[in-house]
């Protein structure tokens, strides 16, 4: 059955007549364009690449886990306190290469031995400081069974902890992903920024898996209570995001055990780690991805055949009409279209208004953040100064530590606000259908989920899914992460530079030391306050730019979309009229052609629906 279905889809996609008919009756794209599109889809079916990002914060045991399930030797560096956030892809190969492929941002590639120490040179933040090597990603091969079906694991940090450049890469992966594995901890339960990641990614993937890493010293009760807590939060996210019946199960695994047992090749221990059980579910679900994709392509093709058929029917009935009658119909249709486009314009206008309100509100919010963060930071720094931290690298360290909270707070807030706005938009456009000359039921039957998937598969060719939902969701992601997020942590360098000059004196008895400290602290304050102001200002600017970009992005997309709709309609009518003109001259042979084409369509339809 499965094979038959696939064959039907593949053979239809390969049929040279399909683009011909599409061009002939729909008339939006040329035969050649359509041919290329179908070819691309065909390739997707054969590719069997199911990207599965593994998302989790540092120290969650994520890399250990991936080592455990993919390699029987240490591979991904794990004990790094801080790792540069580079995506590492793990792909299948029957005979894995002994080297890993490093892909640089400028497209260069190089090969390095696939061993922990060598990889650490790229992944460790102390070795590859702020990704100076300009690496885009690393690809390692593995012959783990789980990857056989085409699963590709990508070791990814959470979105919240990313810098701008890396965010783009992460988003690319998420766009391509069929699913996502969220890596959680027993304690703390899912944090605010983890929750934001889940909210952002979960709706965009077909299947999500939640894996909670259990440390070896955690008891059953502890792990279970932690699991309950995480699950409660996941359920809340599901409820808020109206994600229907998406699975909220949390798998408990012991990454460390999984890792050591695969080093020792100890299957029993591997099973006991919980990893085997998770892999089983993963591969069971994985079977469906292929099916899902195939299904959505099939649905889409069925819809297109329907479309072509209905256009064909129109052409045929047009031939029996007089010129005046056609023009009258076209006029009527134009009227309908105008109504439709007015509705669309109205929605877009409302959306733009909402966006403007959002911009204003967010600006106010940002201002109050600015004021309170500045005051708080000044106080925190004063406390440190009073305790004698007045110089050099220590001060830099302290500033770094203290910036983290206000920085995260501002960005988390932005994430949440943007998600809220996107939700509202989605609701506003939710019942909105794209224009169709003659409504067919097919389109509406597409699941939104599938439509979204379809879109991420075929983005360059089919820009808009069944409704405006997909398009908005995509706009939200694309707009959001295009900006420079991480640069706000930058100004710290200047503080370090400014203060580094003086080095703390020799040990002074604690009493006199206090005096020294006091006078020194007072001298330091202006420099520190300036650094604080700079940090605050940069963060504010970056966030402001982000908001503007996001808002402008949506507005632009909405405009483009309206224009597209107008264009499409225009073309549709011209096409109809020209077909009428050309067909009337040889009416009888034209009718024959139409009949033959229709037979072909019906045959295809039958093949697809079998």
């Amino acid at each position, binding site marked *: 059955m499965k094979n038959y279905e696939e064959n039907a889809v593949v053979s239809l996609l390969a049929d040279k007549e399909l683009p011909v008919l599409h061009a002939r009756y729909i008339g939006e794209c040329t035969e050649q364009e359509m041919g290329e599109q179908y070819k691309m889809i065909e390739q997707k079916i054969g590719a069997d690449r199911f990207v599965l990002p593994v998302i989790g914060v540092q*120290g969650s045991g994520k890399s250990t886990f991936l080592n455990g399930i993919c390699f029987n030797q240490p591979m991904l560096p794990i004990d790094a*306190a801080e790792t540069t956030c580079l995506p590492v892809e793990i792909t299948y190969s029957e005979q894995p290469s002994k080297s890993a492929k490093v892909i640089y941002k400028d497209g260069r590639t190089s090969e390095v031995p696939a061993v922990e120490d060598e990889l650490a040179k790229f992944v460790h933040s102390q070795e590859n400081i702020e990704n100076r090597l300009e690496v885009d990603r690393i690809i390692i091969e593995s012959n783990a069974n789980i990857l056989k079906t085409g699963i590709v694991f990508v070791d990814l940090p959470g979105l919240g902890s990313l810098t701008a450049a890396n965010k783009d890469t992460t988003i690319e992966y998420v766009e391509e992903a069929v699913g996502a594995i969220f890596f959680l901890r*027993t304690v703390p339960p899912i944090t605010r920024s983890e929750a934001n990641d889940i909210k952002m990614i979960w709706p965009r993937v077909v299947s999500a898996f939640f894996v909670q890493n259990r440390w070896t010293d955690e008891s059953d009760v502890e792990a279970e209570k*932690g699991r309950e*807590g995480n699950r*409660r939060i996941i359920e809340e996210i599901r409820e808020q995001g109206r994600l229907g019946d998406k699975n909220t199960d949390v798998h408990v695994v012991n990454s460390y055990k999984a890792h050591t047992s695969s080093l020792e090749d100890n299957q029993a221990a591997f099973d006991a780690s919980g990893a085997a059980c998770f892999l089983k579910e993963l591969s069971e679900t994985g079977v469906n991805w292929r099916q899902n994709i195939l299904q959505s392509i099939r649905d889409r093709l069925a819809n297109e055949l329907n479309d072509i058929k209905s256009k064909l029917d129109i052409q045929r009935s047009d031939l029996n009409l007089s010129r005046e009658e056609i023009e009258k119909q076209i006029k009527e249709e134009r009227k309908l279209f105008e109504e439709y486009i007015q509705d669309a314009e109205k929605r877009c206008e409302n959306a733009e208004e909402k966006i403007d309100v959002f911009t204003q509100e967010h600006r106010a919010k940002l201002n109050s953040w600015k004021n*309170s963060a500045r005051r*708080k930071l*000044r106080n925190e720094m004063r406390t440190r100064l009073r305790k004698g931290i007045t110089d050099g690298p220590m001060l830099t360290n302290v500033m770094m530590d203290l910036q983290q909270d206000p920085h995260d707070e501002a960005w988390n807030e932005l994430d949440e606000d943007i998600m809220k706005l996107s939700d509202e938009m989605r609701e506003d456009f939710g019942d909105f259908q794209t224009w169709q000359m003659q409504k067919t039921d097919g389109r509406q039957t597409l699941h939104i989920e599938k439509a979204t998937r379809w879109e991420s598969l075929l983005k360059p060719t089919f820009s808009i899914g069944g409704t405006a939902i997909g398009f908005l969701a995509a706009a939200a992601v694309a707009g959001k992460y295009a900006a420079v997020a991480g640069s706000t942590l930058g100004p710290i360098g200047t503080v370090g530079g400014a203060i580094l000059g003086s080095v*703390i004196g020799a040990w002074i008895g604690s009493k006199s030391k206090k005096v020294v400290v006091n006078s020194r602290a007072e001298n330091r304050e202006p420099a520190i306050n300036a650094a604080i102001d700079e940090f605050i200002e940069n963060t504010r600017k970056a966030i402001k730019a982000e908001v503007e970009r996001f808002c402008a992005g949506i507005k632009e997309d909405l405009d483009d979309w309206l224009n597209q709709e107008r264009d499409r309609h225009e073309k549709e009518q011209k096409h109809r009229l020209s077909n009428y003109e050309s067909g009337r001259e040889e009416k009888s042979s034209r009718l024959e052609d139409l009949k033959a084409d229709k037979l072909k369509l019906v045959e295809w339809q039958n093949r697809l629906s079998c």
Partner: protein
Amino acid sequence: MKPIIAIDGLLPILEEIGDQEKICVANLLKNRIDFPSAYLTVVGETSSGKSSIINGLLSEPLLPMEATPTNGTVVHIDCSGEKSPQYFVIDKNGNRRKLGYQSFQELCKKPDEECLRLEILVSPRLEHHRKLHVFDTPGFNSVVDEHAEVLTDFLPESDVIVFVVGYRQGFGQVEQELLDMIGEATKADPSIEIVLVVNRAPANLQMQNKRLVEIKKNAFDCLGIEPSCIVVDSVSPEQPEPRVPESKKVWDEISKIVDSPERTSTVKEKLHFAANSLLQEVEMELERLCLELEISPEDRKYILQNVKHLSDAREKCLNRVKEATEDLRVLTRTAARRGVDGIKKTLKQEIEATSKWHDKELCLNWLNGHALQHETRKVCKGIEQIIQERLNSLDKEIEEIANTAVKNIERDTELASDSARKLAANIVRTVLFRASGMVAKSLLSKLGGVGGTAAGTGNLVKMVVKRAGKMFGKTFKRTTYTKIGRFFTKKMIKKLNVGLMVAVEIIATVLETATWQKSTRKNLTKELDKFQEAMLEELEKKTLPEIDKSNKNGVHEIFDDLIDTKKKACELDHEKKSTLERYRILQTKTNELIGSMKGAHS
């Protein structure tokens, strides 16, 4: 109609129902309207000279003002008294006992276990300060004290907070912590004024004086607003004893704030609101009493059924509370352990990164001055987060149980008579109201009247109600969580400071340079283990039991009185038509009062 007339009208009604608690509230409200007064809290570091500022308000210095920390307890100076002062002590049970001057002075310096606060009833030096109630708080050398809890109780209830900074000492860490706390405690009520008093300043100080500017800047960073600032000059050594500073302008300024038209109208509004809430509540109660009297014997079974649903729900809720506490016990323990492990790892890496440290001093300084506190704070915050998450979901669980109970009650009473249904509806409303956000809202509803939100229930109302006694006990509110949380973190950091810092300092002076890293790490590990123990003990013995208790209380607050009164309702003598008629009349009267208040307000 003015609130005062409404309250006058309400008092006889309350007398007739015999509701002592509400009579008490009404009397307080009346008192407050009759005798306008302002509540001031004076806060400052031990040696800032608070007591001397307060003494300047009086004709003679009644508060002891030695250089060493003087008062360990809150002293309430009530300026509405006679010229010759009277002294009182209020014990922990709320009993007020008269004192002689001598024992007052002694208790001031060394309060005993039973002493909750002291009180002086006296007349001020200047007549126009009569309405002032001044609360002198204990001096603080550090906020991380048991005293801090006292402060957080007082602050939100004040009309004005007077923050005293000694000019010579300047604005230091203690000031920062105190003022931070003041900012935190008054955030919800922007009508609370904060006055900054810079005490013992050199004569003729210019406003652009560097230190003064510094103090003001610091104060702004803590509060987010610029408080009005009053400079009080030092007492010259030539002045004869007792040397009381010239603080008249402080009190004049405060009187001005208190008497400003905006404040007067805010106070009026609040009084109006409080009176109205009280009326609404009495009305609701009368309605309930009447409904209960109207219930026919046949309908009693419905009410008993309702009671059963309520009792079941209470049982279930208490079970959920138990589960939540157990969850927290396990999870916080795990988090503490995991957290401390994390600190050890991080700090180990830091300490051993030799290239980073110019010398051991630098490293130890950094550990003491920042790293330890920063890391432990993260761990504590993590624990707070776990507590909050679990309590949030507990709230939801309880709401769900309440909803089910409500549905059952509605279903069961469908066939009952009109009054039984109304009574059930009354129960349903109450339960729903109380259960949403658990008890927080129900408490507010007591003030807000039927369905009214009590947002903006200002300090005055809180004060009135709280002073009436037990209506506002230790309750299960969001603020309670945060308070519990905040104290948890602060307490823990304090504990850490004591143990760890000392240890680190000692090894610092003794050890050879070659081995300091290793020894520091070893010592750190040992102390962090102790810290973990302390944290666990705090959780086990104090924080979690406290939370458990307030959760349980929360459940009882939702259900108990409903269950009890409904049970009683079924035992009432229903033949007493006359009682019913009397109540109906009272209800009408109350409604008239409510109506007339509305008219007056709009």
